[in-house]
């Protein structure tokens, strides 16, 4: 399925929104305005955006510790996200969740997750609910190449295949898990083989090609909606930043990251080139989008800074046991 021109421009805007959001979040973290830890999605924007472009608003996703991009791609509100990063009362989770736990159930985001692999079972469960109600909705689980080694993936993949659940497993193969290259941990580095025992399709794609991601996801979503069961998409990409901010990156091969930041490989730069070459957008139009996105994030940052701290009474809200 080829994305319409308007869809493509919207994809561009979303990818840029994620990039600029992350740069702002990083800035807050470096300035100590933000606490805890945070994980940057920079370089992986095409995956969240390509997949979510193939979803309806009421489809479900589960996200990860590296989750800002997933929520923005699904239509999350940058103001509420930024306020949550600063632990403010009007943030998405009223300041109780922070970077690793942002959720927006109103648009089907069942939450970022502090537990690696934690979302895999939850997405499969949401898919079970879709199957149970027979409502034509689907669920997507985003997770990393580190997470694919969690046992829960194999238990759930089996059940999803058994019951033909409308779930799409999107493994973002960004090459790293914390401070290791993930290749060290795969008995067979072809991750698509991990769906073979369960008999559902698996494809490995260039995860920095947003149109390819979109097409692949659209196909998987189509299958899922008509009751043909799960798909595994292994989206190849690269984690541009450290695991968290402050990561010394001393385990990374020198010069490697730069090879992923080129016009041919960076998901945003290369899509920009495509849009211009195909005359889908003009340079001026893209400049305008950039200006709008920066303004949008600036607004979110100000919103977050001006937001109130949670009142002490919030400690006891939502406690029932």
């Amino acid at each position, binding site marked *: 399925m080829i994305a319409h021109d308007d869809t493509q421009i919207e994809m561009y805007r979303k990818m840029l929104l994620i990039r600029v959001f992350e740069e702002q979040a990083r800035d807050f973290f470096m300035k100590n305005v933000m*606490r*805890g*830890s945070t994980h940057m999605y920079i370089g992986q924007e095409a995956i969240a955006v390509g997949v979510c472009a193939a979803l309806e608003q009421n489809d479900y996703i589960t996200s990860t510790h590296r989750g800002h991009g997933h929520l923005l791609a699904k239509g999350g509100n940058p103001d509420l996200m930024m306020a949550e990063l600063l*632990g*403010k009362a009007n943030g998405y*989770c009223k*300041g*109780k*969740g*922070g970077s*690793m*736990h942002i959720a927006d159930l109103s648009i089907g985001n069942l939450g970022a*997750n*502090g*537990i*690696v*692999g*934690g979302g895999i079972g939850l997405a499969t469960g949401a898919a079970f609910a879709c199957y149970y109600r027979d409502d034509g909705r689907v669920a997507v689980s985003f997770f990393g190449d*580190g*997470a694919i*080694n*969690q*046992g829960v993936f194999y238990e759930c993949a089996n059940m999803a295949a058994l019951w033909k659940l409308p779930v799409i497993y999107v493994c973002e193969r960004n090459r790293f*898990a*914390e*401070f*290791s290259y993930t290749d*060290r*941990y795969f008995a067979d580095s072809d991750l698509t083989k991990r769906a073979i025992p369960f008999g559902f399709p698996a494809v490995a794609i260039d995860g920095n090609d947003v149109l390819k991601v979109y097409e692949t996801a659209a196909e998987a979503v189509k299958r899922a909606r008509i009751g043909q069961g799960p798909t595994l998409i292994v989206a190849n990409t690269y984690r541009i930043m450290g695991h968290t901010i402050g990561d010394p990156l001393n*385990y990374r091969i020198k010069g490697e990251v730069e090879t992923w930041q080129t016009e041919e490989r960076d998901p945003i730069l290369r899509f920009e080139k495509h849009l211009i070459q195909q005359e889908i957008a003009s340079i001026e139009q893209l400049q305008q989008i950039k200006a709008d996105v920066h303004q949008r994030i600036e607004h979110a940052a100000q919103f977050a800074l001006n937001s109130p*701290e*949670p009142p*002490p009474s*919030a*400690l*006891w809200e939502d*406690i029932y046991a």
Partner: protein
Amino acid sequence: MAERIIEYREALNEALLEEMERDLAVFIMGEDVGQYGGVLKISKGIYERFGEKRAVDTPISENGFTAIGVGAALAGLRPVVELMYIDFACLAMDPIVNQAAKARYMFGGKTSVPIVFRTQGGGGRGNAAQHSQSLEAWYVHVPGLIVIQPSTPRDAKGLLKSAIRDDNPVIFIEHKLLYNTKGAVPEGEWTIPIGKADVKRVGNHITVVATSRMVLLALSAAEKLAEEGIEVEVVDPRTLKPLDIETIATSVKKTHRLLVVNEGARTGGFAAEVVTRAYEEVFDYLDAPIVRLTSEDVPLPYSGALEMAAIPSEEKIIQAVRGFFS
């Protein structure tokens, strides 16, 4: 014995290095414990010295590698398995609780399971609900597990060495805010016995039993209370199970008052256990009801203000102690 001032982190590292040097059956296993030297840098230098067979980097597969550790222990090795956060140990509850804790007794004493599960808990760093828990009470509740929580570099080294030498499963729980703390630690061969509490400060007016990071808060609170003329005795159980109730009872018989401080949530927590044991032992000596100070019964919130409100602090300890004398 020569002592020097080192960090809690370094003390743990030293214990691992020394025990691996001493006993070929000891190896470490966990996520990024080898080549990277540990996410929290506890296993720095171990991979370089002992190689990849004894400093095993695992995939993110907690249930699997923890079970592998237990199996290896049954087969004669002495694994030290690192579960990076106690929250992630939830994914490995079967091998810890159903397997390691049970084998010796259930098999009629035919075997033992010499394994250490090193992990880390506690709040105060804005890591929110899935990276800040204090779950020591869960393990204390399971017959067949030894539970240790060192509060100082000295205890960290001496107790980790003992834990590795013990023939039974040990849950060794560090605290994320203690790694950078410093203290005097003996060089080289030297251990602290499991099951022995430590009086960290002597005082006549009230006993404060505190665990892990709460010991540090209790000690600084005690200094301030001393200025008001209240002399606090701080007792650190160090081993939560088996609990050295004798040392606690001896102290309370002297002070006649007891405050218990633990970072775990209140309901069903470790503090409740200490309170009950103390009532069983020293009821007749008490001048006032025992008080417990714990974290509130909430998942730890991300917001700094809310998180601080949820966990015990020096100020809360001071208030609680003053409550005994007003």
